[in-house]
């Protein structure tokens, strides 16, 4: 992807059609994680993969649409967390463009960054909505301990979100990286939005 390409708003049909597939992959990742009783959500693999394939704009759109669809069909509160999903899409898209999706170790680092971004963006929402809680047993237990020891709400809330996000986002990005590396080039080239036709 070229510099001009990363922020191009001229979305190709192939990359637009990638969005429903990515949202479905998010959904299916989460379902399989549930079936296998994994202690992770793994509900953003599609968004992360789409960001790697088609850049930050498509990644952000995937995140937004993912939460809008969840909001419309399951949990209305998830509308609000669209902002977090958008931030994840942007973060992965930008890092992928800058060459950070080229080895498993780099993917591990991207996972840490994504967890940080996710926690930073979610914390104000969590504070506004739930006085900083997340509803996750482990995260909220940590939050309770921190609050009981008179730590500020913002710090307790951030750590509540971050301890849950860290393993999940690292696993999500690494799994997505594994899948991304296995995709045939002939397929991935379609999602790049600055292809030119040469003349023979």
């Amino acid at each position: 992807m070229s510099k001009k390409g990363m922020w191009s708003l001229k979305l190709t049909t192939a990359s637009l059609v990638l969005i429903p597939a990515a949202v479905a992959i998010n959904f299916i990742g989460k379902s399989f994680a549930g079936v296998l009783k994994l202690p992770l959500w793994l509900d953003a693999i599609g968004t992360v993969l789409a960001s790697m394939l088609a850049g930050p704009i498509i990644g952000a759109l995937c995140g937004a649409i993912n939460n809008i669809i969840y909001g419309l069909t399951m949990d209305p509160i998830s509308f609000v967390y669209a902002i977090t999903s958008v931030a994840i899409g942007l973060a992965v898209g930008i890092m992928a463009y800058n060459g950070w999706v080229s080895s498993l170790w780099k993917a591990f680092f991207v996972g840490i960054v994504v967890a940080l971004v996710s926690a930073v963006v979610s914390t104000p929402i969590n504070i506004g909505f739930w006085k900083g809680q997340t509803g996750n047993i482990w995260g909220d237990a940590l939050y309770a301990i921190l609050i009981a020891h008179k730590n500020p709400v913002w710090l307790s809330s951030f750590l509540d979100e971050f301890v849950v996000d860290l393993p999940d986002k690292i696993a999500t990005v690494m799994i997505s990286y594994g899948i991304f590396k296995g995709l045939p080039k002939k397929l991935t080239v379609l999602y790049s939005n600055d292809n030119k036709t040469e003349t023979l």
Partner: protein
Amino acid sequence: MAEIKIMVTVDNLKYRYPLTEELALKGVSLEIASGEFIGVIGPNMAGKSTLCQALVGLVPQFYHGAYGGRVIIDGLDAAHIELSKLASKVGIVFQNPFTQVTGAKMTVYDEVAFGLENMGLARTEMIRRIDEALTMLDIYEFRSHNPFDLSGGQMQRMAIASIIAMRPQVIIFDEPTSQLDPQGSEEVFKAVRSLSRQGMTIIMVEHKIEKIAKYADRVLLLHQGRVVDFDRPQKVFSRPDLENYGVTAPVFTNICKGLNITDKTSGLYPVTLDDTYRQLRANNSEFGK
């Protein structure tokens, strides 16, 4: 006699997909007249699908890559004109009925409307065209079903209806029955044939060689991105070197070769049952003289 109108002109078409070395098409030239039924045959990698996609502009506009030569559909340059404009001249039906469903519409009726809404047609005109297309494809009774509830054959006929509602003059079928069961295939062939009878120009890639022999006015034999032959079915299927190009002649052609049932003047073999019967009658009456 009516003047013959050229619908499709392909002039020295060359094409290479992105990230590949070899050309998928290595200088293809041909002309197709309005109302013709063209069967396209050849082994894998012959360039059949690439040619089909070049005729509707997807090559190069969707895939990019490297392109040379020209494809003109009724005066429009397929490589450069907006694909949605070209869509009212030429349509394409792909192999997989499932991926041709837009996925955004809840009923068969609305699904067929998708292309017409994009063309910006008035509502009354849409309704007229959809009713006509659904009736023509014999799926009017399924109009309020969800597209994903249809059988493969019905879904593929819906895909055809979606294309013909856009009123193209040329329809390309790229192995339209390869993913269907025998009944579904028959439904689709019947539909293709009736479109051809109504004067539409048809270009069909198909592995079921008997169907090509039966319906095609001319057969295009492709091999490794080049045109080997483009002629009447009897001529193409009577080639002694046919198998070198990875194509097996129709059953009747092979039987007639074995029994030496041939047109004495041209030396060509029959390609269908009717053909064989006619040739036998002709040859017998000659004997009778």
